[in-house]
């Protein structure tokens, strides 16, 4: 930035190259993202679907599609499903990650093999979510290895039908999300903790603060920006939850649609060629994503402002 300001005068004649180098990005973005997005929004105001082989519409119907979606009640249910499964995965994820990050960055603990553990816990993040889901489906099926292990060790007498209980299926999905993301969160939080001035910890120790006090009064407040970032990205990612529940339940969202997420709902409308409803649903998901992101961001940065004053 500094170099740029100093040499501002010299750069003026080259400014057209800035635009030239931006052409590929904006051209491709315009064609493959912006136009589709605008047309999705446009379709949301039309009655347009396939009835057998016959195409109905497109006829302009105003906000009828939105009213239909909101009146059906499915939308609310699927939003709740998505958020419940996100929270079930996120709460243990943030708790474990905070603990691990605190341990790894603790100078007095001096844990050995930190690199090895970090490598292991990050690994599930790179696994194909659909394949992991298929693997869990096989491992946790009624006569799969997990049920056999549980029965052999005498914990249960009959196989537990994970896939026919809401808690079982939601639990499995949350567990996979936890497994895939806690390593990533740990590494991000570690980076945040290592950015804190060690002199603060030393001063607190000299003053006789306990490690819990140090954690809650120094580490947590200074970690707010990175926690905000982790929470927002996780929430946006959580709202896009698709691969894992889709494969685990074969797109049905069973049992009794308790694991059907918003994007699975959208996917169903797309596959059934309900273009109007799919469009309206896309707009609603867009609004929910935006509102929640802003909400989380505001609440966390707002608290930070109060803390600074006090």
């Amino acid at each position, binding site marked *: 930035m500094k170099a*740029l300001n100093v*040499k501002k005068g010299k*750069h003026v004649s080259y*400014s*057209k190259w*800035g*635009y030239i*180098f*931006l052409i*590929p*990005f904006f051209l*491709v*973005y315009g064609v*493959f*993202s912006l136009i589709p*997005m*605008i*047309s999705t929004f446009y*379709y949301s105001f039309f009655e347009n679907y396939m009835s057998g082989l016959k195409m109905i519409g497109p006829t302009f119907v105003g906000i009828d599609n939105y009213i239909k979606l909101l009146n059906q009640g499915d939308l609310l249910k699927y939003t709740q499903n998505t958020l419940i499964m996100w929270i079930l995965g996120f709460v243990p994820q943030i708790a474990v990650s905070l603990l691990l990050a605190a*341990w790894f960055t603790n100078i*007095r603990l001096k844990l050995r093999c930190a690199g090895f*553990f*970090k*490598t*292991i*816990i990050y*690994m*599930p993040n*790179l*696994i*194909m*979510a*659909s*394949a992991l889901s298929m693997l*869990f489906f*096989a491992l946790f099926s009624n*006569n799969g290895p997990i049920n*056999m*292990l549980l029965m052999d060790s005498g914990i249960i007498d009959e196989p537990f039908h994970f896939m026919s209980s809401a808690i079982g299926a939601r639990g499995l999905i949350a567990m996979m999300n936890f*497994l895939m993301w806690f*390593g990533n969160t740990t590494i*991000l939080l570690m980076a945040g903790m290592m*950015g804190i001035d060690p002199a603060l910890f030393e001063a607190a120790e000299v003053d006789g603060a306990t490690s819990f006090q140090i954690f809650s009064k120094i580490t947590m407040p200074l970690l707010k*920006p*990175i926690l905000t*970032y982790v929470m927002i990205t996780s929430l*946006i990612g959580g709202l*896009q939850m*698709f691969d894992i529940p889709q*494969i685990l339940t074969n*797109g049905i969202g069973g049992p009794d649609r308790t694991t059907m997420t918003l*994007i699975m709902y*959208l996917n169903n409308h*797309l596959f059934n060629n309900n273009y109007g409803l*799919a469009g309206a649903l*896309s*707009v609603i998901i*867009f609004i929910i*994503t935006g509102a929640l*992101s802003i909400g989380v961001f505001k609440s966390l940065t707002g608290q930070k402002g109060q803390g600074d004053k006090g």
Partner: protein
Amino acid sequence: MKKDSGGSLFRLNIKRLICYIALIALTIICLSPFYMLLINATRAHVDIQKGFSLYPGNYLIKNLINVLDNSTILIVRGMLNSLFVSTTTVVLSVYFSAMTAYAIHAYDFKLRKFAFNFILLIMTIPTQISALGFVKLVTAMNLKDSFIPLIVPAIAAPACFFFMKQYMESSLPLEIVEAARIDGSNEFRTFNRIVMPMMKPALAVQAIFGFVASWNNYFTPSLILTKAEKKTLPLWIAYIRSADFTKFDMGQLYMMIALSIFPVIIIYLVLSKFIVQGVTLGSVKG
């Protein structure tokens, strides 16, 4: 004084022990699904039905041959398709993201700030919400069952751009660009011959992440690809899930999952140092 420090040392050791136990437990939780996968991929269908074993069987080669011979589920074809799409995607996204980041980093122009903020804004928009328009566009362009709609959009990759921009701010001094200009290098050549080589560490990190993201991608390909010979790996996984599970050879099933997961694990174990470091580079600076 001495006694006190001895007591705190003891407490520290107890705490250390608890940490190690917790870490080992987490390691077991992380690795056990993949261990079970590996074991079951080496066992025959009948053995898998009988119960779980901690030790590998001797059916690895047979399972592999069965999977390769399977004429309905073209896993090898799927792997090659995934490999092709992922490789081309990575090359495009890495090169053009660096180019976009360079435009904003090195040049001063009127819309510079606007362009930067615009890309940051679109970074948080989920791609799924434009899926309807995307499918309609691809159908209109007659590109269904083609890899082009999966590959070309990679040129506009906001997250990859952001990473490159962050990296340039810390490690690309503009004096070098100035020097190249004085030596008579034109802007395009400067970017290709001087800037790109300096970006190697960032390019490597993004190449790994980009490859993995594309290899694992399920949502978009499922909307575009329908023909068996075009399907990528995640689509075959979905196909296996939708098939009648009771009639399936479980040995083959585990082998197919293994073939989708283990290539990435191997790449990861070889390059884990770069990857774990790379995770933090692209995020906000605490």
